[in-house]
C-alpha cells in the first residue's frame, strides 16, 4: 500500500550529490513530492528531507540505493506517525482585504499567521504548519485577492532520533565498535538510530 514517507539523508557537502540522489528516484519514475537540503546540526554534514508517496518495500530499496552513494552517510525512512514536520508558507494579499474584512483578520489570527511586511498596497503573511493547513488558508484567501503564494519543502525531525553528533564520530573511526554499526538485517525493531 502506498503512503507518504519522509526520507532523511545525512551526506557530505559535495557538488553533484543532489543529482546523484535525485536520479535514484527519476530512474524508477518516482516523483519527489518535496525536497529540502540544508546544513545539519553537525558541521560539514548536510541533511536531505525527501517526501514521496510509495510502498514501504520501494522506500526501503530507495534508501539502500541512496546509502550506497559514496558521500551518503545514512538514510532513514519514516511514516508521518514517526516524525514531527512543518512546512512554511508566505502569502501576499492586498492590504485593503486584511484591513477591511474582519473575517480575513480573524482567520489569519486563527492560523497563527504572522505579518512579515505591511505596505499600503500589500501585506505578506507567514505561516508554518502541515500542508493541509496551508492549503486551507490559501483556499480561503483566494476570493479576497491572494496575489502570490509560495511554500517551502517539508522539514522533519524523527521522534526517536538522538541526533547525529555521536554517529559521526563512529563514521570517522577506521575501526568502529561492532555494536554501534547498524545492521538493518539484524537490528530491525530497535531504535531508529543505531548507526
Amino acid at each position, binding site marked *: 500500500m502506498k503512503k507518504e514517507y519522509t526520507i532523511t539523508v545525512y551526506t557530505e557537502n559535495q557538488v*553533484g550529490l543532489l543529482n546523484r540522489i535525485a536520479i535514484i528516484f527519476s530512474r524508477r519514475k518516482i516523483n519527489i513530492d518535496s525536497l529540502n537540503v540544508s546544513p545539519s546540526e553537525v558541521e560539514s554534514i548536510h541533511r536531505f528531507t525527501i517526501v514521496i508517496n510509495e510502498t514501504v518495500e520501494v522506500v526501503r530499496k530507495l534508501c539502500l540505493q541512496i546509502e550506497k552513494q*559514496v558521500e551518503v*552517510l545514512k538514510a532513514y525512512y519514516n511514516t508521518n506517525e514517526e516524525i514531527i514536520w512543518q512546512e512554511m508558507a508566505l502569502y501576499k494579499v492586498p492590504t485593503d482585504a486584511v484591513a477591511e474584512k474582519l473575517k480575513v483578520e480573524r482567520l489569519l489570527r486563527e492560523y497563527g499567521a504572522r505579518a512579515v511586511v505591511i505596505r499600503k498596497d500589500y501585506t505578506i503573511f507567514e505561516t508554518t504548519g502541515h500542508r493541509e493547513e496551508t492549503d486551507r488558508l490559501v483556499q480561503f484567501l483566494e476570493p479576497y485577492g491572494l496575489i502570490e503564494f509560495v511554500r517551502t519543502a517539508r522539514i522533519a525531525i524523527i521522534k526517536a532520533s538522538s541526533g547525529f553528533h555521536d554517529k559521526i564520530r563512529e563514521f570517522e573511526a577506521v575501526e568502529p565498535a561492532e555494536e554501534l*554499526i547498524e545492521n538493518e538485517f539484524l537490528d530491525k525493531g530497535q531504535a531508529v538510530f543505531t548507526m
Partner: protein
Amino acid sequence: MSSIVKEADKKDTLIQLSSTAPVEAREISGSQAVLEACIAEGVDTIFGYPGGAIMPIYDALYDYNDRLKHVLVRHEQGGIHAGQGYARSSGKVGVVFATSGPGATNLVTGLADAMIDSTPLVCITGQVFAHLLGTDAFQETDVINITTPVTKWNYQITDATEIPHVLSKAFYIAGSGRPGPVLIDISKNAQIQKFNYEGYTKCNHIRSYRPKPIVRKEYIEAAAQLINEAKKPFVIFGQGVILGRAEKEFKAFIEKGGLPAAWTILGLSALPTDHPQNVGMLGMHGNYGPNVLTNECDVLIAVGMRFDDRVTGRLDKYAKQAKIIHLDIDPAEINKNVTATVPVWGDCKETLPLLTQLIQEKQHKEWLALFNQYTKDEQDAVIQAELHPTQGELTMGEVIQLLNELTDGNAIVVTDVGQHQMVACRYAKFNETKSNITSGGLGTMGFALPAAIGAKFGALHRTVVAVIGDGGFQMTLQEMGTIMQTGLNVKILILNNRFLGMVRQWQELFNDRRYSFVDIQSPDFVQLAKAYGIDGASIDNRGLLKNALQKMLDHDGSYLLEVMVGKENNVFPMVPQGCSVSEIRLK
C-alpha cells in the same frame, strides 16, 4: 619482529621527510601528479586515446613511458572495454584515459557495463579550462552529469592540488567493497598548473563510505543451522566469489557441506568445470538440472550474486518452496529481487570460512545424483547433438568443445554477446579463476575484441581467445588496429552464422519467424584481418576444424579464425521470458 622494525624505520623516514618538507616537496604539474598517482597505485598499463583537453597529461606521459605502458586504442569504447578486460583477468583496477567531449561520451557504454558487472575502473577524462565550463566551449560536455548514473563515484578536478587525494580516493573506491567504475574529470588548467607535491598517500578510509560491513555471528549461525538441517541444499554463486578472491574459501565450503553448486554467467570459472559438485549454469540458457531443481531444493544458498532476471525467470515462481540464504557484500542487493530468509551481509572471503566452520560434513549423494540425472536428459536432448554432431552444418558447440580439448581448459575465453556467448559459457571448460570474461549484465555487443586485448595485457602469460559473433565483431573491429600496433597475441575466433542469431532465435520462436533485420552481411573477415597484419583463415568444413583451431593456437601472434556455423541453429535449453525456471524448454 623485523617487520615491525622496518615499519618503525619507515615512520622515522616519513617524519624526517615531513620535517624537511619545504626542501623535499617538489613542484610538479597536475599532469605529473596524475601519473605519479598511477605509479603509486601499481598501475602498469593504461588504455587511452589522446585529444585536446587531455594533452598536458599525454605530454607528461612522454616522460613516464618507461614506467607506464600506454596502449593506444582506436576508439574510446575500445579503450574502456580493454580496461575492463584487464581488470577482469588481472584482478586489478583498470585505468583508461580519454579526452573531453566525444572522447568522454564514448566511454559511457563501457562505464554502464562496468557498473552493472562490478568491474573496478578509474577513468580519467580531460576537460576544458575551468573558466570555460558551461560556455559550450569546443569539445565541452557535462561529463560528470552524463556519467553519474553509470559510475560508482565521479568527481571533477579544477585545481591541481586536489589531484593526489582525489585519485587516491578514486582507486580506493573503484577497487574496494563492491567494485565499480570511477570517473575523474580534470580541467585542462589543473593539468597544467604547478603545485607543491608532498607525495602520495593511499586512501584506506572515507567516513561516508563503508566498503564492507563488520560480519556478525548471528546470521552465520542462523545460516549454518539452515544448511545443517537441509535435505536438498543448493548453492548458486556469482562473480562475488571472484571479486572477493574467495575461490578457495568457496570450494572448501561446498566440499565440506557436500553442496551442489551452480553458477551465474559471471560466476563462471570461480569453480573448476570438472569439480564433481559443479552442476552447471543457471538462467535462461543455463543447464536443465540447476534450473528445474532451483524449484525443488529446500535451502538455496546464494553467494555473491544478485538474482538477475535472466537467472530467476519469473520471480513469483522462483524457489518459493526454499529457505533462502543470501551472502552479499552490498546490502542493497539483499531482499532486492528475492527475499532472504537469512541475509548474510559481508565479504564472502570472511563469511564463507565462518560458515564452513559451523556446517556439518555431509555428502547429499542422492540429491547430487538427481542433478546428474537431469544432466543426462540434457545430454541426450541437446548436448550430444551440439558438441558431437556427425553430419550437417558446423555447430558453435563443437567448436568450443574442440577448443576445450586443445587448450585443456587453460585459456582465458572472452565472449561477446549473443548465441555464441551462451554456447561458449555453457560449454567452455575452465580450470582457473578469472578465465571467463564477458559482458553479463549490460549485454554489450562489441565487448569481446577490445576486452580480449585488455585481458591479454592483464595476464600476458595466458592464452586469450576472443569468441565473437559476426555481428558483434563488426561493432568494434577497428581494435584490430590496436593489436597490429602493439603486436599482441590474441586469438580471434568468429562464429559466423550470417545472422544476428539471438534475435533471430527469438523471432523464430516468439515472432512467427518474422526475421526483421537480423540478416547481416559481413565483409571478408580474413582479408580484413590481413589488412591489419593479422593472419587468419576461414573454414566451413568439419574435417578441417581441429587443425584450423590448432593452427590458430600455435600461431606466433594474433590470429583470426572464422568458422561458418549453422545459420539457423538455436541455443537450448531455454527459459522463455516471463516463464518460471522449471518451465525450461529443451527444444
